[in-house]
């Protein structure tokens, strides 16, 4: 089922977290607060899984360097 058709988060599902790899220092703050485990951490970068991300924006709040923004899907 495509995310935009879910009943619970119809509005916010139109947003998607997007990370600026040049600013990101891979501290994983975002991943620790992500309620849907949509942030994958490797040794040198983080990856936001668009199929899981609900666009809730909690990761944006905790990023110490402002490397994450919400973009339109």
């Amino acid at each position, binding site marked *: 089922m495509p995310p935009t058709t879910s009943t619970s988060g119809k509005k916010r599902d139109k947003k998607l977290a997007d990370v600026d790899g040049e600013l990101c220092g891979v501290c994983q703050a975002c991943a620790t607060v992500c309620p849907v485990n949509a942030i994958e951490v*490797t040794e040198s970068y983080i990856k936001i899984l668009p199929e899981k991300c609900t666009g809730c924006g909690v990761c944006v709040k905790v990023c110490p360097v402002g490397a994450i923004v919400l973009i339109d899907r």
Partner: protein
Amino acid sequence: MTNHIIVVGAGPAGSSAAMGALRAGAKVTIVDRKTNVGIPVQCGEAIGKTGPGVAEIEIPEESIRAPVRGFRIYSPGQVSVDYATKEPSGFIIDRRVFDKELFARATEAGADSLLGARVLDVTRSNGTIDGAVVRYNGQRQTLKAQIVIGADGVNSQIARLTGLRKAYKPDDIDSCFAYEMANCNLEVTDLMEFLLGSEVSPRGYIWIFPKGNGRANVGIGIGGGIETKTAKEYLDHFLKNHDVAKRQLNDAKVIETRVGALPVCGPNKVNVVNGALLVGDAAGQIHPITGGGMGYAMVCGSIAGRVAAESAQKETVTATNLQQYEKEWRKLYGAEFDQSLRLRELILQTEDATLDKLANIVTGESIVQLTAGKKVKIFMKAMSTGDRKLITLMQELRKLRMV
């Protein structure tokens, strides 16, 4: 068959757990997602002497940068309060050297290592965890073990996969940013400086830790829910505008930038399941006020390793058996975490102006006595001010009876 334990994470908690398990005769493999242990540094790099002492793990000599005797706290209005012991009570270390050396020692003691292996899943048989699935060299690989120790940090995959930990709420973590700086002109080189205040660092603090030779670790932790500015913006603002920074760091140069996150809400309620346990940051074993965790990681790691090895030898790896680990570490630190959480709440509830008034009448020694529940003269001083908020704060501080 030799009893086999997998330790996920090669930081201080993981290396200490490995050493604890090796001492108790188990076969150990340490797995880490990174290929370079200790890098990047995500820490203030302060460690007390007590933890390593209890864990019977020596602080690697070559990692020590500066001995410290205590702290200097600046209240929001820049009133400073010092507390220092005669002899050094801890050190500022270089985490790169420290982590690497502990890891090296664990391998020298007999641990196998698998670096660059990211945990994807855990395996179970009859509801008991009996291994981990990792991605290594681009391949999925299953590693079997009697017990999996999750020492994999604040964003522990083992914690999530075992169901021991759900996502943190933003206010349960601190968002951290730090610079390692050279050419600093520190006023004290054997005290750790802390700066409090809702303007300087909301729900957290700024730290300046001496690293010897004019170098310092200068950083900030702010509440994860703070949305006004990022941690980096708060620290940059401090460095540019604050008197304490201007006096000491005016000519300082940045030689490294660091980011990090840490739980400040106290340890997880449960850290064991059938076939697995959590230790260190993964278990939330971090001081809720200072954010310090290395000492706890080393002590709790050693206990976890030993209990895991003993349980594996007896082939009794149920949560009930691993409970021995919880019992032992909570006996050492349970009260300390509870009291510190209460103190944290108290500090967070206190207005900047009241903290300034408190700083004006106390000394480092008297505040330590007060929070230990002792009778101190400053209490009378506070009463004589007639300031109700200050008096209530001091009454609450006395009730903490810190150990």
